[in-house]
């Protein structure tokens, strides 16, 4: 099997591509967390103006296909490099989804606890920081792991603007060896599967570590 030899000889390239994919993933998740959390907090605790702005932004990002936003950001006249464009565009898309994860988690924090902090003389921002966010983190990890694996797969879109990640490696091999397309994609599929499993394993571990006695545990 010629293709197996080729794939083996291309492993260093795939390793590089995997690292690039992970960089894009970490970058876009970070953008998504920051903007997503801002949207969630504004939608719940904001005044009518910030609420309106956050909801509009969220609906806008929600409705645009990732590919369209990716090209849009890439072709903006800022001369962004492909990696940065991918991180920003995919991160913005992810922020819409992450905002709803955080929003749901924040709303699950009993309002009585927020009122108790208020009655103790604690300001709203400090209440959010010390009472709401810590509980939100624990409640978010499950659904957030879902978003993590979904975004890991979506890093494969970055190849369209020229980011040399896993898909780009695959395309390259397909271009210079004929007739092995399925085999290459099979390999790539296994690679993504492995990455996803490793990632989710660590988030499940984290969820266990943040478990609070007396609450239900995911079995």
């Amino acid at each position: 099997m010629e293709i197996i030899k080729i794939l083996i000889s291309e492993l260093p390239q795939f390793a590089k591509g995997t690292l690039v994919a992970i960089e894009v993933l970490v970058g876009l998740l970070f953008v998504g967390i920051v903007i997503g959390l801002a949207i969630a907090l504004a939608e719940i605790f904001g005044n009518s103006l910030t609420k309106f702005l956050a909801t509009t932004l969220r609906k806008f990002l929600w409705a645009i296909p990732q590919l369209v936003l990716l090209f849009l950001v890439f072709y903006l006249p800022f001369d962004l490099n492909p990696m940065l464009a991918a991180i920003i565009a995919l991160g913005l898309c992810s922020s819409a989804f992450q905002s709803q994860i955080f929003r749901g988690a924040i709303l699950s924090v009993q309002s009585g606890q927020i009122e108790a902090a208020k009655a103790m003389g604690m300001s709203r921002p400090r209440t959010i920081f010390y009472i709401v966010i810590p509980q939100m983190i624990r409640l978010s990890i499950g659904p957030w792991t879902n978003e993590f694996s979904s975004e890991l797969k979506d890093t494969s879109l970055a190849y369209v603007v020229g980011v040399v990640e896993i898909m780009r490696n695959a395309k390259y091999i397909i271009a210079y060896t004929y007739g092995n397309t399925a085999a290459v994609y099979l390999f790539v599929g296994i690679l993504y599967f492995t990455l996803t499993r490793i990632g989710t394993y660590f988030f499940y571990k984290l969820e266990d570590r943040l478990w609070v006695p007396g609450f239900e545990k995911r079995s």
Partner: protein
Amino acid sequence: MSTILEVKNLTKKFDDNEVLKDVSFELKKGETLAVIGSSGSGKSTLLRCLNHLSPPDSGQILLEGININTPETDINRVRADMGFVFQDFNLFTHLTILENVMFGPLRVRRWSKDKARQIATAEIKTVGMLDKIDSYPAQLSGGQQQRISIARALALKPKLILFDEPTSALDPELTGEVLSVMTDLAHSGMTAIVVTHEMGFARSVADKVIFIDQGLIVEQGPSKTLFSAPQHERTKLFLKNFSGLE
């Protein structure tokens, strides 16, 4: 003894519904005041008006002689000086018992960690829960959670404590342990306002009682007098519901 709280002509409306009508009373340092009345009479609203969880529309609230019902008041400082105990405890579920009770001293008063821990441990001891110091709220019974929420209020070193039906969410067996903590507090000289349906507690522990009906104080006075010789028909009618229960 000096007057710690004086309330003058307090009113509160929800839309067109007058929940509190011209409520006035005063409380001396170390006294326990019980506020009784039927559900919907406005007694919880009165309590929530005092620390502006539900800001009153008009009237004065003088805490140690200073009117706190003004826009210039830093309400968070006032709230820290008035402990509040909720009907449904509202403990912080992600924190241990010790962390819950340390929260006020550490995060609101911004005292040092050592001082906060020392105060918290002492207050947890006061409510008899030292053995649960590392547990989480969800591991405790309702009565235990309420005792911790009392410790949490005490740890702020407040000038007075407001209890909003502290035993209404508990079954009779658990009610006793909470009432006994509150009785000890009253005897130790803590100033407290207790909104309650526990007539036994109001009669035997409280110094003063206010009976409130449809947002009006119908009658107030020393608890002995109010229970043994109520002056108004409405008070007599209300207390009749409880006769024979004690």
